């Protein structure tokens, strides 16, 4: 049965004489494609906005900007409209599933999608069509989300390139990798939320360069079942959005134990939105010692300092903390763990399809990684346990750690330490939020990272939301 837009919207009292877009804009300033999930969900729930019209608005936006941004590998236009119509029917019948119902989202093209090609941006998987959904995809569908398509990444998630995806803030500048299409698509208004993956920066880096919000959750918080791997023990999957609140809404849907993924933790999943308005009064924020900040871009350090000032005005206490002494050697251990696991994951592809690898360095790297020994791998994993213990010690006296983010898009990175991979190795959650605009070069997004203790995403979100509300950097839009 088809529900007409008119019938769907008839549920909204007093709004019947206006077209849907006008109704939504009357209630909410700005373009439909730049609504937040929370805003769009409120309109859909009240039946002032139809999932079909929202999806059509997003498809129109995609038609407008995709030729410039190139965020997608596969755009599932027909499937999206079908899912939107199904959502509309359900909501009209009184079966509203929650805040993702009827909301257009995307997933990195590492996520298995039943009946939809899943390439990992490699010719090796050019024709691969999974017969089941990744747990994340299944959970998004169960929440009623509308899948717009599969987003771009560097081949097999390896490296920091955007693989042809362009930064909406400056199309000549990179997006970073590997969740490049997610970050660029969000910044460009091509969907409202996305699921990405992060082995050493791949959610947080592109989020920072494109001026959106990205969470690398605690290891074990979100299932990786049915997601193509770079490294089993270092990979994290997590939500990317335009606001912290939306990020919490997305995490609500995808977090939790999965019997198909033994790495997922049997830790209760709270409603992450409840923590958003806790504020930061009295929380203890640790920052790296001054000498550790050497080499970060001047604009980034300026944004970092300004963020500290904001948090202190909001009532947080800030103190320097000493990072784990094993931080430098952990970087070596990270590379060994990552490549040994990648080599194992790639064994069947190297055996059957080695000649199909693309022009990236993936084949070279995994072939070489396969030559490392079990003893060398285990030595790296021993270092990791020492490092995790030290990191837990650092966090014993703080609630969150604040770090500068990566350098503005395309600028050289001379930072003394990576603000990313240490938290993949320790598994601690890290949230990137927009925090300013670069002056040299002009106009590129700047960000900060808020890191929490294991499974303390609520605290991280509370800090991120408080900062967001105090600064409004997240409301900037690229000049597309």
């Amino acid at each position, binding site marked *: 049965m088809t529900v007409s837009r008119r019938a769907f919207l008839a549920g909204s009292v007093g709004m019947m004489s206006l077209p849907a877009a006008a109704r939504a804009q009357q209630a909410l300033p700005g373009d439909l494609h730049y609504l937040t999930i929370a805003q769009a969900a409120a309109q859909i729930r009240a039946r002032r906005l139809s999932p079909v019209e929202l999806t059509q608005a997003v498809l129109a936006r995609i038609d407008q900007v995709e030729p410039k941004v190139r965020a997608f590998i596969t755009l599932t236009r027909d499937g999206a409209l079908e899912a939107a119509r199904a959502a509309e029917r359900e909501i009209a019948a009184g079966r509203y599933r929650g805040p993702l119902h009827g909301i257009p989202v995307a997933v990195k093209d590492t996520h298995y999608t039943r009946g939809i090609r899943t390439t990992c941006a490699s010719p090796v998987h050019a024709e691969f069509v999974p017969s089941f959904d990744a747990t994340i995809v299944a959970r998004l569908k169960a929440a009623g989300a509308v899948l717009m398509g599969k987003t771009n990444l560097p081949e097999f998630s390896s490296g920091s390139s955007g693989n042809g995806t362009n930064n909406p803030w400056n199309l000549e500048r990179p997006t970073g990798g590997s969740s490049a299409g997610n970050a660029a698509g969000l910044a460009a208004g091509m969907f409202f939320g996305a699921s990405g993956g992060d082995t050493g920066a791949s959610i947080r880096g592109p989020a920072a360069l494109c001026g959106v919000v990205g969470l690398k959750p605690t290891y074990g918080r979100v299932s990786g079942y049915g997601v193509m791997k770079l490294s089993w023990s270092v990979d994290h999957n997590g939500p990317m959005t335009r606001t912290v609140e939306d990020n919490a809404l997305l995490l609500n849907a995808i977090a939790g134990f999965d019997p198909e993924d033994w790495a997922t933790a049997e830790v209760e999943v709270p409603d992450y939105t409840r923590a958003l308005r806790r504020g930061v009064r009295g929380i203890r924020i640790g920052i790296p010692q001054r000498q550790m900040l050497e080499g970060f871009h001047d604009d980034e350090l300026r944004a970092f300092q300004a963020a500290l000032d904001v948090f202190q005005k909001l009532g947080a206490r800030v103190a320097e903390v000493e990072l784990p002494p094993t931080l430098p*050697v952990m970087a070596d251990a990270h590379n060994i763990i990552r490549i040994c696991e990648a080599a194992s994951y790639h064994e069947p592809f190297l*055996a059957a399809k080695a000649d199909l690898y693309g022009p990236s360095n993936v084949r070279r790297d995994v*072939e070489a990684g396969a030559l490392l020994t079990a003893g060398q791998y285990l030595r790296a994993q021993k270092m990791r346990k020492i490092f995790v213990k030290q990191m837990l010690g650092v966090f014993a006296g703080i609630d969150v750690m604040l770090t500068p983010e990566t350098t503005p898009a395309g600028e050289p990175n001379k930072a003394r330490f990576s603000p990313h991979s240490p938290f993949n190795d320790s598994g601690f959650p890290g949230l990137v939020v927009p925090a300013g605009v670069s002056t040299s070069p002009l106009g590129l997004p700047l960000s900060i990272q808020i890191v929490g203790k294991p499974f303390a995403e609520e605290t991280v979100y509370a800090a991120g939301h408080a900062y967001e509300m105090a600064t409004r950097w997240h409301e900037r839009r690229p000049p597309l």
Partner: protein
Amino acid sequence: MAEKLSDISDEDLKQMMKAIARANGRPLTDERVEIDLPAYKNYLAAVERLSAYAFRVEDEPAFHFSYKPGPAGGTKERER
């Protein structure tokens, strides 16, 4: 005293690479060895730096097994 990895010549490393690849069941051609050598040397340099750390006998790797029951009907078959 054990030989440092960084002291091993490229020619010896290439022979090692071929031998390990054969033992792994996927031999490397001479061309692939040349392509892969820089990456292998980078990894060995990381191994060498890591090996300088004074691990204790009691230090354990950061992984563990956690057996969890799956849903009725068993585990979905992984593809590929």
